[in-house]
């Protein structure tokens, strides 16, 4: 496939993921659609343009790993895993239903493709760090990707892991920050500001790239591994829009865990084409 074709496939998958995720939230009357929509282009790019994996062999040792540290955005994660072939589409209909494998936050014991359980913020980066150290110890070739929210970076555990990753020069570790500038209640900068975020990661020994997190071509470039690999861990600060793709959701904090009514659901599906 040409790069153009790949990018086109990613955009199509991302559109399907947004539509499907929104309907899941609508049906369940629960979910985190704002953070689903800021992350979907990133997740689609990873699964359809970057990562090596085989959904038939989810435990394959040499697979690239993806950790969804912002575990509340299961609308994005589950639709991505489903599109990648990890489980049949009808499982999505059970989102948050009694005894469903599709819990509000991902559980690796229920679903293939989920590398670790997340939900409490600030857990993904240390686990990803451990996976990357295991790869370093065994000279493995796999890459480890972890996606965090930006508000999530207020948790100290991220910075403990960032320090270790920098010191260990883990070139196969990539952290993507979904920089939508909103957390649960309001903006990140009015809560406990993160800027200048790039300087913080550089100071911890990381390479840093800033991209538009909805520009698939830019994401593909930033996520590709340079010939000869990297000598430092990479932090991609993906500037995103919470609720991206639906006019009435974009940049509105209350859509963090907003649930659409029937009219909003219809309008959103009309816009997501």
């Amino acid at each position, binding site marked *: 496939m040409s790069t153009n074709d790949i990018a086109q496939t990613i955009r199509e998958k991302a559109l399907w993921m947004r539509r499907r995720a929104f309907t899941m939230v609508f049906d*369940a*009357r*629960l*979910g*985190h659609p704002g953070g689903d929509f800021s992350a979907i282009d990133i997740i689609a790019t990873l699964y359809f343009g970057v990562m090596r994996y085989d959904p038939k062999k989810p435990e394959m040792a040499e697979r690239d790993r993806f950790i969804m540290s912002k*575990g*509340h955005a299961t609308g994005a994660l589950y639709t991505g895993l489903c599109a990648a072939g990890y489980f049949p589409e009808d499982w999505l209909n059970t989102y*948050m*239903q*009694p*005894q*469903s*494998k*599709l*819990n*509000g*936050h991902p*559980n690796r014991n229920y679903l293939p493709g989920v590398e670790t*359980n*997340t*939900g*409490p*913020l*600030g857990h993904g980066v240390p686990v990803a760090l451990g996976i990357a150290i295991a790869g370093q110890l065994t000279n493995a070739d796999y890459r480890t990707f972890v996606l965090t929210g930006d*508000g*999530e970076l*207020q*948790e*100290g555990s991220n910075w403990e892991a960032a320090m270790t990753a920098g010191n260990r020069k883990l070139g196969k570790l990539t952290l993507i920050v979904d920089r939508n500038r909103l*957390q*649960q*209640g309001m903006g*990140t900068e009015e*809560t*406990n500001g993160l800027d200048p975020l790039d300087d913080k990661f550089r100071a911890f020994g990381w390479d840093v790239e800033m991209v538009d997190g909805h520009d698939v071509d830019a994401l593909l470039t930033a996520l590709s591994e340079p010939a000869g690999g990297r000598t430092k861990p990479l932090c991609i600060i993906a500037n995103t829009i919470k609720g991206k793709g639906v006019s009435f959701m974009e940049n509105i904090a209350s859509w963090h*865990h907003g*649930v659409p009514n029937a009219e909003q659901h219809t309008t959103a599906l009309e816009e997501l084409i």
Partner: protein
Amino acid sequence: MAAPAVKQDGLHDCRDAWARTIEDLAAQDPRIVVVVNDSVGSSKLGGFQKKHADRLINVGIAEQNMVGVSAGLANGGRIPFVSAASCFLTGRALEQVKADVAYANFNVKLVGQSSGVAYGELGPTHHSIEDFAWLRPLNNISIVVPADAWETAEAVKWAASHEGPVYIRLSRMPVPDLEVADRKFAHGKAELVRDGSDVTLIACGTMVHLAAKAAADLEAEGISARVLNMGTITPLDEAAIASAAHETGAIVTIEEANIHGGLGGAVAEYTASSEPVPVERMGFPGFVPTGSVEWLFDHFGLTAEGIARTARKAIGRKRA
């Protein structure tokens, strides 16, 4: 965080009573501050934020920092109420709770919101059913579990006036007002909701209402069940448990928590060493499946019917 918003007549979300009370207390006492982790909305603190903006300290999504900061605020002569989802407040910051609040013995009030399985569908990461077992050994922290809006307001007022660490465990599940005549808030004392002689149902929080219903149902079949609202778990009202053991000979404990190490554990520890009688512990055995609060209660027998069934079992275990 999303959770089902059930609105029914005559039922109250205890978070409203918490929010009203802390706003009033803060107006009276300038030492009161509230510390949160991006939890203004889920703690219903919008009003507090408007009225006392400078006394709402939002550290962001950083629970360990939040609890450590509270110990520092207490050192500085403030009276901090830390308000956060109880799963993160007690789980994420457990060592800060242990070392900075309990061991250092600072005057910090921990207010755990949306405890138990209130976040049903969001799963075990968001459930707070281990909190009793985690905090009970830190025995200078008083654990208070209000059963309704009135008791919530009283508990918050009591905590503000009490010198020392407190954990107030709240739910977001709408509950009715408990029907007890002439109520007086008595910290550390079990509240007699209904007297009885065949078995005692000892419950806390949301479960008190179900226990009262079970007792009424049992009466119809000729079983006389005492119901105690154990609104304080630490310190435990051992005298009330001793009387229950003596006078009714069998005990059922009911809590929206893990059955290991919580209210049931406390009652079983006490009875085993002092007043051995059959004790049946009701709650959750461990991590639970995905499901709504209602489904989870039903699945684990936390219903009036399930409690009545367990009461009959406890009575059946009495020595002849």
